[in-house]
Each structure stands twice: as structure tokens, then as C-alpha cells.
């Protein structure tokens, strides 16, 4: 699944959205070793909990569902962590490199930021995945700003109607921007939606 891909670039060029995916190959060789390495990976991620805007795992829920400690014990094979700044992403990658757990790490985010971070940490990117646009009946797509929020949930669980709904509530002062961002975030069960970025985009819209 490419669910952290296809997040739209920001018109302002802001880079406050880096999704890290850590994955160990399941079902092969030594299950116990995989579990231990994923638990250690969660340990490292937990060092940045205050800087993370979201975290979780597929079908395991995100930050809104449970704390990091609960994910550690879950024994999953995939970790998501959403950073809102490059400094903490860099520090986390440095730790992962030093611990040398052998888990596969991918980062979705603005190319310049990720490239610079990899160079500074001393990592040589192995494989790239590029979004090559949306094609076909593009007149069915919502407004670009709405799309920027909706695409942060790759499973498309954050509907454009719900975004319009929270915008209306903000306009009527029945909800704050932060509450609206959290409401939207609650629909993403993988912990990759970035409520920090959503709040910023909502402030631009209302």
C-alpha cells in the first residue's frame, strides 16, 4: 500500500510533514528476532514522542487511540511516525542507524528535506517512489486545499464532506481549528494523518 504517498506539496513550500515507516519482513527466519527489533524501533520512536504529530500502525489505530507503550507490546510488523520538523526526523534516523537493527525504513516528505537529512545522517537512499500525478476525470476532484488535507489519509477515510463539515463548524465558531484537525485525524486508523499540518491548512481556509 502506498498510503503515505500522494500527499500534496505545499504551495508555501513548508516542510512540516515527514512520515516515517519502519517495517520488518514478517514470517521469515526468526519471528522472535523480528518482534524484538520492532519493539526496539518503537523504543527509539518513543524518544521523539513530544515532537511527533502522530504515530501508529495499520489497523492499529493512531495517536488518538492509544499511547506508544501500547504499540510496543502489539508485536506489529509496521510502524508509522509523523514528524513535523526535520531536526527530530534527523535525530531519529541517526539513532536508527546507530542501533543498526536491520529494519527497513522509508520516509515520505518533501524531497529536499529528506535528501538533506539522509546526506547529513550518512544514509544512501536505496529506492525511491515518486507520485506521478492524478489522471483521468480530474474534474471529479475536490478543491486543491481540501485535497491537501484529504490525501494525508492514504486509505481515503477522511472524506471531503467531513472536511467541509468541520470548516463550516469553524466558520460558525462551534469548533476550533485544532479541534477540527483532531476530528479529521480520528478517522485515520493508521496514524499517518498529520493534524499539525491539517490545522495549519484549515487556518488558511477559514
Amino acid at each position, binding site marked *: 500500500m502506498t498510503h503515505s504517498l500522494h500527499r500534496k506539496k505545499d504551495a508555501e513550500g513548508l516542510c512540516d510533514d515527514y512520515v516515517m515507516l519502519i517495517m520488518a519482513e514478517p514470517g521469515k527466519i526468526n519471528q522472535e528476532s523480528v518482534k524484538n527489533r520492532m519493539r526496539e524501533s518503537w523504543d527509539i520512536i518513543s524518544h521523539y514522542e513530544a515532537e511527533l504529530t502522530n504515530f501508529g500502525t495499520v489497523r492499529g489505530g493512531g495517536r488518538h487511540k492509544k499511547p506508544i507503550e501500547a504499540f510496543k507490546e502489539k508485536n506489529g510488523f509496521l510502524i508509522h511516525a509523523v514528524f513535523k520538523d526535520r531536526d527530530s526526523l534527523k535525530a531519529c534516523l541517526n539513532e536508527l542507524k546507530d542501533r543498526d537493527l536491520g529494519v527497513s525504513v522509508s520516509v515520505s516528505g518533501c524531497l529536499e528535506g529528506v535528501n538533506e537529512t539522509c546526506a547529513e545522517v550518512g*544514509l544512501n537512499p536505496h529506492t525511491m517512489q515518486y507520485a506521478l*500525478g492524478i489522471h483521468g476525470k480530474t474534474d471529479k*476532484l475536490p478543491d486543491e486545499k481540501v485535497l491537501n488535507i484529504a490525501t494525508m489519509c492514504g486509505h481515503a477515510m477522511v472524506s471531503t464532506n467531513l472536511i467541509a463539515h468541520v470548516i463550516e463548524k469553524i466558520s460558525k465558531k462551534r469548533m476550533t481549528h485544532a479541534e477540527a484537525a483532531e476530528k479529521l485525524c480520528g478517522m485515520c486508523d493508521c496514524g499517518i494523518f498529520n493534524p499539525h499540518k491539517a490545522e495549519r491548512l484549515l487556518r488558511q481556509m477559514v
Partner: protein
Amino acid sequence: MQIDKKKCVGCKKCNPYCTVGAISIVEWEAKKKSEVDQKACVECGACLRSEVCPKDAIFMPELKWPRIVRAQFGNPYYGHSGVKGVAPPPEIKLNDITNRILPGVADFVLEMGRPGISTSFRDVQTVCTALAKAGVTVEPGGPVAAIMEDLDTGKLKDDILEERALNVMVHFRLDYDRLRPGLKVLKDVAAEIDTVFSLSLVNRVEKDGSTPALPIAVEEGFQTDAYPKTNVGLGRLQEAAK
């Protein structure tokens, strides 16, 4: 998804949560009730998981073939477990461990219906048959291959063609010498479908840091207009890990 009209109080709270706008208010026994348009519903389960209904009126009935493909290709909690137990390939993730995608090839993921528009399986078939005519077959072993009648022609099983799903991921691979004609097929078929697809390219990073397939795709009119994903190369097989 369905809404029990006997329980529903017509509060409309669930309406905006539907990922494809399939919930609306109807008149039922002289009262206003929410109803799910069964043709449009993609069985993603978002309305139920929102837990917004004050009367627990939303429910997912038992899904049988062929309708179950809607959930298999759009409900994160169904995954693709019902499609012969097949999960989509991990694309870029794990490639530093598995080397599934080697240098010299361009791996593509074409996601029909994404973002949030949904697709009919007939449109999926239109794309798959166009690719097949150009000699490009969908990656065997994946979820789409599991619902195909014939991998060589790209034809899907007849009984699912009118079903809809939120995101049907079509994986295929092109050697560099077939890259330009393959991309042209995608340009052409995009005009034939009644939905959208999000396209992505997976390419190994060469020693000089380049990804050779990307400039070719850009030359063919495919702009990379969103954040890319980078496998940073930390993965290794377990025996080799400390």
C-alpha cells in the same frame, strides 16, 4: 453499509463521514431517515468506525461475493484477506531487504479511484486490458490478479464489473526500453475511464544518486507533483542484522 431505519433518528450526524458521499436523508414512514445508496457505497466502514451514530443504527451486513470485493479493496480492516489471502506487494518498503525491485526496471502502482473518488471494476478492467494489449501484464500474485479471469488479456471476472471500490491498486513493471510506450498507454486510457487514478513510480537509486526512469516519465508528461517516498537503505536480512 446499511442503516437500520427503525433505529435511525435522522440526525444526519453520519452523513459527512461517508467517504464517497453515499449517505443522504430520505422520507421513510413520514419521518426523515439516513440511507446508504447501495450502488455508491464502497463498504469502507468509515461511517461505522466514526462511532457518531447516537442510536447504533449503522451496521455492516454479511458481505458475500461479489459485493465483498468492495470491502476488500477499500476497507482497511478487510485488507485483501478475502481475495485468496493475497496482500498487495510492499512496493518500496522492504526493498532494501527483499530486492524485489531491481535496477533497470520501473515498477508502477496505479491506484484506481484514489484519492477518494472510487472506481467501478469495469474501469479497472479498461485499464488492465489496455495495458495487456500493449504487452504489459499486471503483477501476478497480487489482489488484482486474484480477481482476473485472464492475466494475459487483463479481463476481470464478469460478476464484479459493476461493483465499486475506493482504491484498486494495479501493480505492473516496465523495462526501460518499454517505458515510453507503456506511459503513452496510460495517458490514452486515462481519457477512457469515468474515474481517476493516482500513479506512482518505484525506481532503484543508482550509484550516482539518480533514478533513471523519473526523467523519462517527466518527459512523457507525468509531473511528480507530490512528496516522494524514500527507502533510506537501513534494512538487511535478519541474519545480517546485529
